[in-house]
């Protein structure tokens, strides 16, 4: 890893100022992706500004039917504290990486990085969450722009994410057995007036909403509604672990499993 100056910011304004003054400076949240990336010298910031000491960026708060989670909140905290508020999200958070990763990794870091196989982007997109930055609010539909790409501008800091809390939600994750990342994973969120279905791990363009599945489940929230549907393999990831056709096939299968688990009993 190339050396850098480490700065522990005490406020978002301080972090933003450092980024403004030095375009080569970077942000550090939990570091569970960034530090391994820097070890491989795929990133070499001049300064790393740690956000994890900023209390305003931590914690969960519920207001009516929305849940706001600070960007520097760890996966472990979401897994523990969202259980009674938004159990589908708590379950997702409790299956990211492994326990030690969940104790450091943060929701803001995951959403800012937008790894094509990350878990949180699927939940944010299926729910229509709002990304809150130090400058503005960005709807999830406008936020995820592609693999490792988001609508965040240079020096813009993701401070929180605000989820509308669905009536029911389920994250079905089909893991790649070696890395244990999602090979394909589907987040299904049922609201009073619509159903959101978002898919991670499958597409060469990163996380996406499966509109046909959403429409089918909006008309009839049953596994049968999606089981007969299919997606084109074009644009799906093909690698040594699975073909694009296999990944495309998994999407309706996992969606149906999510619906089954939400409607059983």
């Amino acid at each position, binding site marked *: 890893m190339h050396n850098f100056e*480490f700065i522990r910011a005490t406020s978002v304004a301080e972090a933003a100022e450092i980024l403004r003054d030095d375009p080569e400076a970077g942000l550090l949240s939990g570091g569970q992706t960034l530090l391994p990336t820097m*070890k491989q010298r795929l990133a070499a910031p001049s300064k790393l500004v740690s956000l994890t000491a900023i209390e305003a960026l931590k914690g969960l708060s519920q207001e009516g039917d929305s849940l706001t989670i600070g960007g520097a909140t760890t996966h472990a905290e979401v897994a523990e504290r969202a259980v009674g508020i938004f159990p589908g999200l708590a379950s997702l958070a409790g299956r990211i990486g492994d326990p030690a990763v969940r104790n450091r990794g943060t929701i803001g870091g995951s959403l800012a990085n937008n790894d094509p196989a990350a878990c949180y982007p699927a939940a944010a997109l299926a729910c229509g969450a709002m990304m809150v930055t130090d400058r503005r609010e960005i709807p999830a539909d406008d936020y995820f722009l592609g693999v490792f790409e988001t609508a965040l501008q240079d020096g813009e800091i993701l401070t929180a994410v605000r989820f509308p809390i669905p009536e029911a939600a389920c994250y079905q994750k089909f893991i790649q057995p070696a890395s244990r990342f999602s090979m394909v994973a589907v987040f299904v969120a049922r609201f009073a007036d619509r159903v959101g279905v978002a898919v991670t791990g499958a597409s060469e363009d990163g996380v996406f909403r499966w509109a046909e599945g959403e429409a089918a489940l909006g008309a009839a929230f049953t596994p049968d509604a999606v089981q007969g549907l299919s997606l084109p393999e074009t644009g799906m990831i093909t690698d040594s672990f699975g073909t694009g056709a296999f990944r495309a096939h998994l999407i309706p299968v996992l969606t149906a499993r999510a619906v089954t688990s939400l409607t059983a009993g």
Partner: protein
Amino acid sequence: MPMVTMTVNGQPRSAEAEGRTLLSQFLREALGLTGTHVGCDTSQCGCCIVEVDGRAVKSCAMLAQEAEGARITTIEGQAAEDGTMSKVQAAFVQEQGLQCGFCTPGMVMSVTELLRHTPKPSIDEIKHHLEGNICRCTGYRNIIKAVLVASDQPLGALASDH
């Protein structure tokens, strides 16, 4: 180089650290606490797990300077001052939950955290919690037995050696 100060196994410790110095390096090289093992240095294996403010984390995926002011517990802090092993350590010995022993410090730290919030874990819960700890020797069976013993639970189907 900046000076970093943290509480390690109950003692205040200070040493210099570069920005890029990992907590694992700091513990091993600056403080001489080589019980924290570095197996992969890519945050896969869990050998380097220590507790930071009561949470088990991979010390190769955290910067030393991030731990400024933190309370760190390493494998060296598990036994009592007279050398009496912790309940988890003793269970690993009793059930031979190790062969080469390289992964053991991380295993003990992970299990210690698990039993604090889940005092009687099921076998599935044990497996889920140890997903980030890789052992290339044991096949995990004796590690799971050790966790059952450390949590005062019967070995059940694992009691047989066959």
